[in-house]
């Protein structure tokens, strides 16, 4: 086990380096920097900003030196200042983070809470009536563009029925404390729904195929032969095995949720990380763009590592095999 963890951590080092290189390349694509060619005048940054970037990133120095300097600053957790309001980038990210965590945390919770029972029941009777119906519904959700779903929900619940607010995190005149909680929840309902259904469909399909496959395996048959009930065999024996691929892919749900956040937070005017990233792109606020790209990729790497180690902890086949 220790060998496996050590190997996995060691492999993460070049990946981390690769992430830093990609983010660094992103900076060099930016207009006004040496790597940018053919950008039209509208997209060219102002003289002052270009000067600021040259100073900040040492753009007149050779590339390896720039890279070393930038890595050195990032390693000391110095993410620089925003070009827009000259506040530290870390501070702006800390402000937006709780809003995104609330949105995505709830979305992930709901997705798993619905996807797992759905997947197990559907996988328990492959090609049964429930499997066919849920399969068709999940397929539709899987193909449904988030922003279209968001617009339709807004039209129905906010414009036609007037049940829910169009956007924002809370009403202007919302009471504080417990009374304001309902108002908060009303504002959360639609964005959380939009972020949930994609993950739900993805996880449910994964669980369903895992359970359907495990269902006909020897260990489930053996459990049934020992007198385990149909449901008991399904949940106690087939489901844990079907969960493994879900855990393996759990780390990769993070970038998918962040991508979704960009769209959902924009539509619902939600002041989170996705919105911050999008606004920074429009404002060419490079320090924020670089910091968010770097942090999200590093967070994903950490989550993937944790997932791999968790799978190895429960599955000896993984830690003994040379699965890399």
């Amino acid at each position, binding site marked *: 086990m220790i060998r496996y963890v050590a190997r996995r951590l060691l*492999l993460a080092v*070049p*990946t981390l380096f*690769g*992430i830093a290189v*990609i983010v660094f390349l*992103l900076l060099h*694509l*930016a*207009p006004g920097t040496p790597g*940018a060619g*053919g*950008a*039209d005048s509208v*997209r060219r940054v102002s003289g002052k900003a270009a000067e600021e970037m040259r100073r900040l990133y040492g753009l007149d120095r050779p590339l390896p030196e720039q890279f070393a300097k930038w890595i050195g600053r990032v390693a000391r957790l110095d993410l620089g200042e925003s070009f827009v309001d000259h506040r530290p980038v870390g501070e702006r990210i800390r402000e937006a983070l709780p809003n995104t965590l609330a949105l995505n945390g709830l979305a992930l919770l709901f997705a798993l809470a619905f996807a797992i029972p759905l997947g197990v029941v559907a996988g328990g009777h492959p090609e049964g009536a429930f499997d066919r119906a849920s399969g068709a519904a999940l*397929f*539709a959700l*899987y*193909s*449904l*563009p988030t*922003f*279209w779903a968001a*617009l*339709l929900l*807004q*039209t129905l619940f*906010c*414009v*036609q029925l007037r049940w829910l607010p*169009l956007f924002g995190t809370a009403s202007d005149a919302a009471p504080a404390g417990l009374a304001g909680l309902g108002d908060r929840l009303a504002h959360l309902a639609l964005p959380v729904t939009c972020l949930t259904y994609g993950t739900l469909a993805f996880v449910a399909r994964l669980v369903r195929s895992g359970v359907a496959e495990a269902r006909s395996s020897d260990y489930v048959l053996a459990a049934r032969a020992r007198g385990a009930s149909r449901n008991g065999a399904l949940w106690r024996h087939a489901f844990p095995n079907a969960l493994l691929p879900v855990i393996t892919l759990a780390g*990769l749900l993070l*970038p*998918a949720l*962040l*991508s*979704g956040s*960009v*769209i959902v937070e*924009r*539509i619902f005017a939600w002041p989170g990380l996705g919105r911050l*990233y*999008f606004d920074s*792109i*429009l404002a*060419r606020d490079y320090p924020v*763009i670089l910091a*968010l*790209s770097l942090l*999200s*990729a*590093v967070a*994903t*790497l950490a989550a*993937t590592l944790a997932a791999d180690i968790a799978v190895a902890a429960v599955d000896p086949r993984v830690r003994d095999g040379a699965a*890399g």
Partner: protein
Amino acid sequence: MAAAIVGLLWLVAACSPLFAERARTIQLAERLQAPSSAHPFGTDDLGRDLLARVVTATPISLAIGLVAAAVSLGIGFAVGGTAGYFGGAVDLALSRLIEVMLCFPVLFLLLALAAFLPPSPLTVIAAIGLTTWAGDARYARAEILRIRQLDYARAARAMGASTPRILVRHLLPNALPPLIVSAAFGVGWAILAEASMSFLGVGLPAPAVSWGGILSTAASLIDEAWWLALFPGLALFLTVAAYNLLAEGLRAVTTEGRSA
């Protein structure tokens, strides 16, 4: 069934030049009209016929989706196939590269590329192709890894066939069915990516019509014109669903009798 829908979409695309004139005609007197017999899908904020605009957007979306998916698949299979075939240090290095790409939120990279490069269809295709290949690569790696262990590949090597010959004559034809399946999924994905970019305002530049672009207008007129959101979104949803359905159907056909 899926193939019929995809075929129908291409047929609509082929007929779209007939609607180009209508899609361009600005009639401010008829702005934001609800669906009627004159304008079955209603009109947009400049009084242009929405049906004509949705039809005009079809070939652009399909073409960009197809080319971007091809780029992504090309990079993905080159990287993944190389990693899977050569194994060892090559595999270790290329697998890190795949892992790096999978760590970034795709939309973060898409937005950065699209915003920093000059706006054009080429930029949109390049951005989608360069950011979404990692999934294809991982898939191709596993597939080639599986095939090269099979008897016919080993027999070819034992008979002294060269590496390029084994790759092109023996491995590629056998990797083709899964390649076609991921291509079909990839097109749906790429169409969605293009629509997302256009929706966020970093996709195709102005005169080009795009479903994502119309939906972006719809978002700002949400309390006035529901039809602006409904119809282009429906077209997008049907297109993506049709390609996904096609991919699932192809997968069912190609994996038949091959189970483990």
